[in-house]
């Protein structure tokens, strides 16, 4: 499983993840409070400069992640073109682009391990009410490990389907996929328990 972090090392990779997330939250709120097109325009240009400071290849990667917005930008263009509220449309379009580009920039410049460290730190207070952060990190590792495996299961089931039918594989393979996933869950649970369980150090038998 490959994270969306850009393989191109930038200056922003070296900033602490927590700081980046804090700045991102503050700036996203600011983007939604800004009510003049020029403010958002300046914001978007600044974000473009951030991307460009990391190089042209990085900028192209960033633009690819923005492609999902085009149906919405088209909708805004048609809607506000017809109603004549061009300035309001411009504000919405600039805000959509700036908010998504900024969030993607943080994702692209922060390594998975740094993100997990922030998440563990955020979850730490929940230890007091009995949540095991160890269980959470173990669950994250399990999803990373098992997602490609379940995709592989799904592809195998599709192939088996094609071997028997001239029709395309459809929703019917979801049931065996789910059954196999639940079987795997039971096997992993047994293996974990055989190795002392998730919480060997506390020794509590909570279920």
């Amino acid at each position: 499983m490959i994270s969306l972090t850009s393989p191109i090392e930038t200056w922003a990779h070296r900033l602490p993840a927590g700081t980046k997330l804090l700045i991102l939250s503050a700036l996203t709120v600011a983007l939604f409070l800004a009510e003049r097109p020029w403010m958002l325009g300046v914001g978007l240009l600044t974000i473009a400069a951030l991307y460009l400071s990391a190089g042209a290849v990085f900028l192209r990667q960033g633009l690819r992640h923005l492609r999902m917005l085009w149906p919405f930008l088209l909708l805004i263009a048609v809607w506000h073109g017809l109603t004549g509220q061009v300035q309001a449309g411009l504000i919405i379009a600039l805000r959509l682009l700036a908010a998504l580009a900024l969030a993607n920039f943080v994702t692209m410049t922060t390594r998975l391990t740094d993100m997990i460290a922030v998440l563990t730190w955020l979850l730490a207070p929940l230890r007091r009410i009995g949540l095991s952060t160890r269980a959470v990190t173990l669950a994250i590792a399990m999803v990373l490990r098992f997602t490609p495996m379940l995709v592989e299961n799904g592809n195998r089931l599709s192939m088996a389907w094609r071997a028997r039918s001239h029709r395309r594989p459809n929703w019917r393979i979801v049931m065996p996929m789910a059954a196999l996933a639940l079987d795997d869950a039971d096997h992993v649970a047994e293996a974990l328990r055989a190795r002392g369980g998730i919480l060997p150090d506390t020794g509590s038998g909570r279920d």
Partner: protein
Amino acid sequence: MERNMTRIALFAALIAALGLIPSLTLGFGVPISAQSMGVMLAGAILGARRGALAVLLLMALVALGLPLLAGGRGGLGAFVAPTSGFFIGWPVAAFVTGLIVERWRGAPLAVTAAAASVIGGIVVLYAFGIVGMSIALGKTLAECAVLVTAFIPGDLIKAVLTGLITQALARSRPDSLLSRY
């Protein structure tokens, strides 16, 4: 404890896998992502609490920067896009779906699970989706409600399929249906 945890983790992986298998279309000619059906299934099979936790776990992984959403999307951008309301509503949708399957025992399981998916995965989820879209696109709630009606037929199909799959799973793995224990 271990079994609960591994089932939650495997179900989070299942929802991700359902969005990532390109060949998996729901038939009917239109390629509909099976991912939101995974959210309905999480509630219907794991029950309210565990179903919501499976979805929250997947959301955490997406936030960490993993491309686990349909079409390989992910990262923090998933929380600020026009469709993010739907994404943010996922755990609530799974919770409500699970709660209805847990409580309503009068009807056949396929009917209960399908109806629960309609309420959790469509009524509740669309409420979140419409509010999110209204904030992002600067339109009124009513205008956004009209914009999303195009997706209701596909989601109704997913709710019916969730009912059928839940019932089939209850038959082949009777003790895996945690929502009924």
